[in-house]
């Protein structure tokens, strides 16, 4: 085989393998979206229905807006309130993430410029994230019960803030490390306090890094399941918990409704993830891999 021929063959193999995985990656997402538009007779049909025919908005209207006329009695789900959960999820994920990034970046600045935490301490900080949360779940819920934080937004915000802090510190530190120090030295000579230097020079310089960190941590807090399951009961359910309530209803499987809810939970996350796609490697590797 000539060289150019061989190259064409290897390019063909590459596209084949990549497309194969692309199909594997997309099919479940396609199925979820397709099911959300299916009328109830097609959720569970044999042979399986691949494209909703005809597509219907009934699942969305019923699940998200509680439109009764679309709720065939058999599938009626009355007590759940996805819009309330959406609000809870937004507030809890938003506030805890904001706190995490704000506090994390201040701490990261201290570490980067004043060695506030030694390298050993920085790595020990990772323990907060790497120990499975299940091992503290029970005592945490009892402690929260004693403090009156059980089933409250503040309780979840607090624990999300603590468990995402290592990501925030490490990721923002990797951005701060890349900022040249000359500007800060000039500011110090001109008499600016450290706080002013931090908030008016350093943080504005890493603005896009802060946004990336915020969105990255939002992915984690938005989809968290275990702690939300344990700490929330009825008042402040988040969206992932709301979704699991559609499981095991006595009426049987309600795939279409579940899918309509699942799409609503997933789409914001995908948008956020695609916005920061260039920074995902940095985020997940605690800033150790940079690009």
């Amino acid at each position, binding site marked *: 085989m000539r060289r150019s021929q061989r190259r064409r063959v290897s390019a063909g193999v590459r596209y084949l393998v990549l497309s194969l995985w692309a199909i594997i990656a997309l099919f479940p997402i396609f*199925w979820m979206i397709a099911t959300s538009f299916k009328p109830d007779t097609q959720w569970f049909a044999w042979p399986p229905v691949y494209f909703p025919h005809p597509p219907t908005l009934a699942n969305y209207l019923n699940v998200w807006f509680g439109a009764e006329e679309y709720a065939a009695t058999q599938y009626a789900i009355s007590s759940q309130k996805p819009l309330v959960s959406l609000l809870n999820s937004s507030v809890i994920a938003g506030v805890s993430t904001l706190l995490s990034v704000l506090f994390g970046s201040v701490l990261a600045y201290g570490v980067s410029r004043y060695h506030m935490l030694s390298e050993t301490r920085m790595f020990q900080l990772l323990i907060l994230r790497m120990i499975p949360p299940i*091992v503290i779940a029970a005592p945490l819920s009892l402690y929260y019960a004693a403090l009156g934080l059980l089933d409250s937004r503040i309780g979840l915000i607090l624990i999300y803030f603590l468990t995402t802090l290592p990501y925030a510190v490490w990721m923002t530190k990797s951005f701060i490390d890349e900022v040249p120090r000359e500007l800060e030295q000039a500011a110090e000579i001109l008499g600016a306090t450290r706080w002013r230097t931090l908030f008016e020079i350093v943080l504005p310089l890493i603005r896009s890094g802060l946004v990336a960190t915020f969105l990255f941590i939002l992915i984690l807090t938005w989809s968290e399941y275990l702690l939300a399951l344990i700490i929330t009961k009825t008042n402040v359910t988040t969206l992932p918990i709301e979704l699991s309530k559609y499981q095991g209803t006595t009426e049987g499987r309600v795939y279409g409704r579940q899918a309509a809810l699942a799409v609503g939970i997933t789409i914001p996350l995908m948008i956020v993830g695609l916005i920061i796609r260039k920074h995902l490697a940095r985020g997940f590797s605690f800033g150790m891999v940079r690009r």
Partner: protein
Amino acid sequence: MNGAAVLAASIPLQSSSRRLSRERAIRRFRWAILGPFIALLVSVLLPVLFLQLYFSFHQWTVYLGSWWDAEYVGLDLFREVLSDPRFGWAIVRSLAFATGSTIGCFLVGFALAYLMHKPFPGQALYYTIFILPMLTVPVVVAYTAEMLLYQSGPINDLITRMTGIEFKPMWLTNPDIALPTVMLLEIWNWAPFSFIIMLAGLSALPKEPIEAASILGASNWRVFWEVQLPLLRPVILLALVLRFLEAMAEFPKTWALLQGGPGTATETVPVYIFLTTWQYFEISKGAAMSYIVMLLMIVVVLLAIRLLRREKRSLDAMHASSAAGEEPAP
């Protein structure tokens, strides 16, 4: 600018007192940042760890009245947990699950990254598609899997149609394959993680050694094994270690999909602790189990951290050299 010059000139005159006040200011700054952080850690984590220790040594469940009067039972609970074969099997399952899914994620992620690390038409589109599974909420993955995997569901239907052979495994109800099924879901969900990390690693590799090797006539295969792979070691270890630790803690998919069933086939450590505490209400046994798992995981995490620390040094060196190589270009 005048002010700066005056300031700079005055430094040598009163250097010692200035340095002292500067040091004091830095110390104040340090405690203003670290203080609240330490206070928060202490006020949340310390009581939690104390409670966990307390329940590990006191027999209590929700039916037994106030927990602070619980009976002290010494090491009984630990003895009970350590002689519980279900706990042993849960650990085995968790290890098998974490190892299998970590290797699976890595192989898929690495293969994709290797095929994609040089620019080609369509690269950005494939990248976008490949990271989507990672951006799907884990519970959503679980429920979507249920819609896909029931016995006469679309996956079995598609495979039957494509191969022409009747293909009807019971992915979720056959105890022999339920755990591998969850493992496949974990791989689908998190192979993108290994993919993006490996892609970043491959793109950051220095070009010179690879070019030098191929000029000297080394085959692609040899360049891969003897040049690229050794240079990639830190990134590979990072991807493996982080994925393994996350997989050890995996809960949402296993729980939402199967609650440990069928039988105990998917009862991993997090699921068993959850069942013990919130379904059987054996709070104390759950606490003792948590304690043992926590200690084991701390050992594992400390070992992992040691490894990460060593590899981070070589990563930083690599980034520094590639940054230095890029600088003259623009």
